[in-house]
């Protein structure tokens, strides 16, 4: 098939307008995720074809206007204003919420006046119809001076019309330009000498930015020399546009008369109640954690047995030698250490995406704001803190929605204390070795220990924030402005796609590094200075004893530093390797004990570690004291190179990334 044209289209809209649902419908599985250059803000792009034309659709973060207050809003601004940006679009689709048309149209007008060929999509028509809201399509096109498509992502209504309209998007110069206020006209005119290619409105918009605009550096200088206060420009533009839009909306729909949140208000009276709201929230968290441990254990056991079987199968089928050892003792236990995480990651993200889809997460932010404020955090810190239970990397990235710089920095610094999924197998392994099995009433001892570690992580996060807030200064007063979306029935396809993408990112991201480290550890644990002596008749190789291997030599050399903590050299290697990523600890121990084991009848790592004895005292190496010490170390230490890198990029400073490394690891060392 010959492609007639290829166009890059940006998908823009307010948060919670169904933008991602439309993106998923249009692109299906033909999506990819990536990062914006220079910073770690994730973006999604996808491809689709229509009538021999190919389109790349870029799903930009949700924004209310082109006056950014957070990092992801700045991304949208830069993408649309910086023509050098790799995602600078040919055309723009603005997705509006049929129930909150006014604020969607503010964004639409701004984008249209930037000169982009723009298509307006009014989505969530099912919700509008349910509330009796009607639109006059012809009037809408006339009043907005633009093509308008009405859709309902839930039922896929209007998708065919949308595709057809995308093909025809063109630029129509609107008559109702935003008029630059007279007092600023001469200033903007003088700036046109520097930026000849920019329209007056673009210069106005650049001057209205609170932050410095790196891609037009002289604007900051002009702002200072002309004593321009960006907030004043923003207020002027917003008020003028709203006054115009008020009339437009009255002419094209009966929305203003009918808008009534009805059921949403009734549900909110319970879910955001001063007492029942918290009871329901903590009850929900309890259910999530129960599901995380109880439901996930069955597939996890199945995966562990599968890899154990695969390892034994390779030992029985491949002749003895280094290749057999690499596969059965190095790669298979290493890969197993990654795959075993999948059920927990998938369950956790199912819940998180489900709550977001329903519209409950905004209520949690509202509920928690008053409790987190005394610790220097914001209600919006709840999202990174909860996401931190899965992985600190997306959690730190999600802190970009916090407007206040101090609250954002504090959230980034303390989020890695939350018990991430990489800590979970470490905890599960150590707990099953040192905490006895048994029940207290109906509560399992090992379960209590695990829950205690999750609570400990949260308490340490808010305690650290409380201390750090006295040392970090803020220029702005903090306030919470929230969009409370209406409650919606979640779309199964959105949840499934979200869970699939998150799990895939985890497996591919962590999997590659674990695989490489497993190979390295296996080689270091299998070879040593005396390897040559292990050849029988120069043909059969019998491997090297672990303590004589290079890994053994490294472990023994760091043993004096960790012996006072009650750790042996094998634990030392585990800790050392997990500074790359915590999740490396379990595969490391699996590789070490797999190389070292002569016991063919006891394939489980837990049994091998439980039997380990101190050669001097002949007592178990893993006792309650050393186990608790190890657990505390893993609870507090910053052992994730990727998180350090993300913190550096999000704070744009090595100072805070290194401070976090020293602060967390210092607490960990002192606590053990």
């Amino acid at each position: 098939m010959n492609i007639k044209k290829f166009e890059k289209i940006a998908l823009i809209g307010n948060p919670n307008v169904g933008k991602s649902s439309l993106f998923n419908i249009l692109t299906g599985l033909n999506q990819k995720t990536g990062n914006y250059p220079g910073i770690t803000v994730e973006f999604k792009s996808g491809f689709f074809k229509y009538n021999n034309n190919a389109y790349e659709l870029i799903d930009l973060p949700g924004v209310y206007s082109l006056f950014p207050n957070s990092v992801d809003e700045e991304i949208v601004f830069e993408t649309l204003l910086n023509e050098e940006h790799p995602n600078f679009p040919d055309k723009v689709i603005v997705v509006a919420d049929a129930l909150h048309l006014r604020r969607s149209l503010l964004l639409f007008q701004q984008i249209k006046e930037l000169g982009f060929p723009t298509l307006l999509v009014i989505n969530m028509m099912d919700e509008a119809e349910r509330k009796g809201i009607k639109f006059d399509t012809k009037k809408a096109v006339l009043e907005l001076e633009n093509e308008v498509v009405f859709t309902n992502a839930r039922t896929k209504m209007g998708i065919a019309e949308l595709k057809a309209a995308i093909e025809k998007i063109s630029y129509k110069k609107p008559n109702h330009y935003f008029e630059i206020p007279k007092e600023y006209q001469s200033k903007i005119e003088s700036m046109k000498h520097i930026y000849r290619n920019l329209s007056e409105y673009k210069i106005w918009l650049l001057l209205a930015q609170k932050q410095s605009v790196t891609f037009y550096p002289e604007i900051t200088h002009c702002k200072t020399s002309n004593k321009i206060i960006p907030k004043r420009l923003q207020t002027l533009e917003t008020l003028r546009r709203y006054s115009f839009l008020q009339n437009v909306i009255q002419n094209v729909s009966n929305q203003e008369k009918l808008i009534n949140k009805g059921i949403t208000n009734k549900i909110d009276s319970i879910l955001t109640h001063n007492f029942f709201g918290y009871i329901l929230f903590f009850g929900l968290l309890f259910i999530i954690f129960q599901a995380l441990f109880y439901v996930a254990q069955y597939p996890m056991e199945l995966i562990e047995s599968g890899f154990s079987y695969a390892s034994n199968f390779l030992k029985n089928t491949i002749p003895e030698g280094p290749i057999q050892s690499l596969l059965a003792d190095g790669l298979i236990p290493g890969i197993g250490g990654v795959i075993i995480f999948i059920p927990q990651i998938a369950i956790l993200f199912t819940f998180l995406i489900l709550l977001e889809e329903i519209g409950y997460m905004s209520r949690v932010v509202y509920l928690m704001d008053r409790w987190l404020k005394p610790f220097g955090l914001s209600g919006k810190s709840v999202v990174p803190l909860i996401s931190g239970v899965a992985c600190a990397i997306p959690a730190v990235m999600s802190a970009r929605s916090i407007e206040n710089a101090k609250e954002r920095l504090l959230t980034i610094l303390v989020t890695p204390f939350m018990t991430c999924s990489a800590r979970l197998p470490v905890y599960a392994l150590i707990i099953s070795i040192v905490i006895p099995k048994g029940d207290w009433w109906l509560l399992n001892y090992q379960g209590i220990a695990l829950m205690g570690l999750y609570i400990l992580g949260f308490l340490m996060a808010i305690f650290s924030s409380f201390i750090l807030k006295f040392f970090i200064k803020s220029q702005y007063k903090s306030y919470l402005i929230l969009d409370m979306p209406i409650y919606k029935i979640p779309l199964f396809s959105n949840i499934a796609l979200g869970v699939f993408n998150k799990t895939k990112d985890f497996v591919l991201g962590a999997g590659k590094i674990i695989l490489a480290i497993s190979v390295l550890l296996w080689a270091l644990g299998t070879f040593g200075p005396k390897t040559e002596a292990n050849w029988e008749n120069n043909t059969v190789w019998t491997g090297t004893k672990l303590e004589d291997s290079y890994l053994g030599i490294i472990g023994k050399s760091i043993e004096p530093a960790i012996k006072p903590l009650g750790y042996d050299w094998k634990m030392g290697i585990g800790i050392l390797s997990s500074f790359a990523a915590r999740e490396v600890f379990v595969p490391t121990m699996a590789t070490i004990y797999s190389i070292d084991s002569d016991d063919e009848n006891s394939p489980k790592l837990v049994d091998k570690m439980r039997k380990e004895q101190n050669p001097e005292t002949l007592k178990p190496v893993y006792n309650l004291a050393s186990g608790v010490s190890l657990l505390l170390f893993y609870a507090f230490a910053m052992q994730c190179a990727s998180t350090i890198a993300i913190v550096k990029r999000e704070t744009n400073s090595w100072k805070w990334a290194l401070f976090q490394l020293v602060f967390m690891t210092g607490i960990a060392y002192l606590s053990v």
Partner: protein
Amino acid sequence: MNIYIQYICIVVILVFAVWYIINLAKDTFTSKKDDKNCGSNCGCK
């Protein structure tokens, strides 16, 4: 399989693993931010 061939395979895999880890570390800690937006007449250099 001949022991020497096995050794060659392992060396290749090991070199690839070490190369991958070094590259990953380099990518993780190297800033990708450039200053190509800073034109000569903008007063930012």
